[in-house]
């Protein structure tokens, strides 16, 4: 990662002192000796218990190295480093699998004198597998149907069981699963309640309506899980969410739980056990509040981790997961929300968060919402399911140590895309994308502002004059 940034950095005159290669920002008590043995033990355990076995087996037999994925990968396009070609990256792990877990690979290794996995390869892996943002754009173009993000997850999973995880992710997850606050931003529940009360006052000033953030209410239809950082950084998004729920007549139909209110799930990026434990917390909170559905806020990976994995870990009655984008679109369809078409005069573009859009789940909904009230809407090219990642996916946005890499390599194409639209406002309905895009805009000095979709809805929402204020 560091070397790529250096080679791209034309301004640097003298090469900086080389930092120790091992664990530049990976935590805390990393293994120094016996790493190869440990890696293979963990790999074997994962192959035994998980579904990665059949997956890596079939990939190792049939991938053809056609390199079509290279044409889609924004990281490779920006860095030009052959290691960034998705199938080249995956091949590292596939080779280890072949050599150590298949008879043919073992025989070939013995005949050719291939000693197998070496210590250096582990360093190479911790570098390269965290270079990938897991955007899954390459999966769209693989003729075989190989999904390199699964191999990336598997590699990170093995490394994380060795104790190798970027510190930023680890401390957040520790607070979320074992800390008092039970969320990644360490916001105590009373502080969250205070924030909500403050936002209620703001909403009253803005709209003249008594719009509530219902706390710990039982038997509600929706239990709301935004990215918890929204409580600190994105008050307009949250107010927009509450205003939509109010206008749609669901003021008394949703709630926020105080025991657990964080949608963020870094387990999606690096570890199955953590993914499951975080989903379990979400499910427990819904059960505690006797809620019926999970309503996810504006956040890509939070929405996807709930949507795709609640059914994986849920043992009880089914809990449907609905994104606030779907909810708002339905409310607009039903004519429950009135948005002023003259409220937003700026040129607006929309960034599709990979975790929502790549599968085609949330692509049309935001566009229907946007087209219902925004006049000057410009699409990025490409967009929708094929959109480029913001450059901070896969948890990398939280790792401040790779800021340069995120700006100069992973975020480069996104910056070009935004500049090409000429938009003044960039809608990014995702906490991670928002942080990354704000940094990109500052770094590349793009005259645009990053907002949430519900921030703009808040500006445009109108309530009938004669409506009763309750």
């Amino acid at each position, binding site marked *: 990662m560091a070397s790529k940034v250096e080679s791209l950095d034309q301004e640097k005159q003298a090469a900086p002192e080389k930092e120790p290669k091992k664990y530049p920002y990976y935590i805390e008590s990393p293994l120094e000796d016996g790493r190869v043995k440990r890696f293979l033990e*963990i790999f074997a355990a994962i192959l035994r218990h*998980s579904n*990665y*076995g059949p997956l890596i087996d079939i990939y190792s037999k*049939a991938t053809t190295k056609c390199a079509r994925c290279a044409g889609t990968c924004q990281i490779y396009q920006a860095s030009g480093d*052959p290691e960034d070609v998705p199938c080249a990256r995956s091949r590292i792990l596939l080779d280890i699998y072949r050599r150590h877990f298949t008879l043919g690979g073992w025989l070939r290794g013995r005949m050719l004198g291939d000693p197998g996995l070496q210590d250096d390869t582990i360093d190479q892996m911790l570098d390269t597998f965290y270079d990938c943002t897991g955007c899954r754009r390459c999966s769209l173009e693989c003729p075989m149907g190989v999904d390199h993000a699964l191999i990336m997850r598997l590699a990170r999973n093995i490394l994380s069981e060795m104790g190798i995880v970027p510190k930023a992710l680890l401390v957040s997850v520790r607070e979320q699963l074992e800390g008092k606050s039970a969320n990644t931003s360490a916001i105590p529940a009373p502080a969250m309640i205070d924030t909500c009360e403050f936002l209620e006052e703001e909403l009253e000033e803005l709209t003249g309506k008594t719009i509530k953030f219902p706390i710990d209410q039982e038997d509600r239809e929706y239990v709301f899980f935004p990215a918890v950082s929204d409580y600190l950084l994105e008050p307009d998004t949250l107010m927009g969410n509450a205003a939509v729920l109010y206008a749609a007549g669901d003021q008394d139909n949703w709630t926020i739980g105080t025991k657990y209110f964080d949608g963020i799930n870094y387990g999606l990026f690096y570890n*199955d056990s953590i993914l499951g434990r975080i989903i379990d917390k979400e499910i427990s909170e819904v059960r505690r509040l006797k809620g019926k559905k999970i309503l996810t806020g504006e956040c890509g990976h939070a929405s996807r981790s709930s949507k795709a994995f609640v059914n994986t870990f849920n043992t009880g009655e089914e809990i449907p997961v609905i994104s606030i984008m779907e909810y708002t679109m339905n409310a607009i369809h039903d004519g429950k929300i009135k948005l002023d078409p003259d409220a937003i005069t700026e040129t607006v573009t929309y960034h599709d968060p990979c975790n929502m859009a790549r599968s085609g789940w949330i692509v049309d909904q935001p566009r229907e919402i946007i087209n219902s009230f925004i006049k000057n809407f410009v699409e990025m090219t490409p967009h929708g399911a094929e959109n480029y990642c913001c450059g901070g996916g896969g948890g990398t946005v939280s790792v401040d140590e790779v800021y340069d890499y995120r700006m100069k390599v992973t975020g480069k194409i996104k910056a070009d895309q935004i500049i090409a639209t000429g938009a003044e406002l960039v809608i990014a309905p995702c906490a991670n994308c928002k942080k990354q895009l704000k940094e990109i805009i500052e770094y590349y000095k793009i005259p645009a502002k990053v907002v949430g979709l519900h921030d703009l809805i808040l500006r445009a929402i109108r309530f009938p004059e004669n409506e009763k204020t309750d």
Partner: protein
Amino acid sequence: MQEILAYAQGPIFRLCFIIMVLGFLQHIVFAVWGIIQMIYRARDRDNAYGKMILRVISWMFPIHRLHRNLPLTSYSSFIFHVGLIIVPLFLMDHINLWRSGIGFGWPALPKSIADIITLAALASGAILLVLRIFTRTTRQISGFMDYFLLILLLMIFTTGYIASRPYNPVPYATTMFFHSMAGNILMILAPFSKITHCILYPFIRVTSELAWKFPPEAGRDVEIQVHGEVKPI
């Protein structure tokens, strides 16, 4: 030479063919078993099989996708694969070979069309080889077998084409011997190399999609096996 050729087209051909079929069968058994295992282990079994199969079929005819990404590679690869499928199956001489082996045959393509397809496959294969050698991206990720298999396939096409000309600079039997032996080598290598994708193709995409349905206890079980407990973070 005739005797050696008969040997190459007879017992050796049959042996190689049997190795290929058995190898492919073994791959199919493992792939299906893997898929069953994945579905069985996952708690969430809400899979859109219809859509998965549609995607598999749609990628078999990727014509509308070719221009979008690396067009030269993509078009060449598509034409090459069309040749690889049609020529072994629909050429008169090959059908006769099939008939002698399995007892029945099917209508053949007219020779002129078969020739055009062969030449197109040769040209596209040559382009793929040149791209693999001279494009930095592919050169860096290619190993010996990536070149060897492609050259072997090109050799099969070339010798087959030359052998079927009425005026042949090299004796027919010699050309045919090289053609047959290269085909035999390819059949032996097929189950042990990336050529396997010709048979595993439909299973790969399905496996990828099912792999996102994780077994719920897997993470915990791994931690217990590796650390003896679900360790604190």
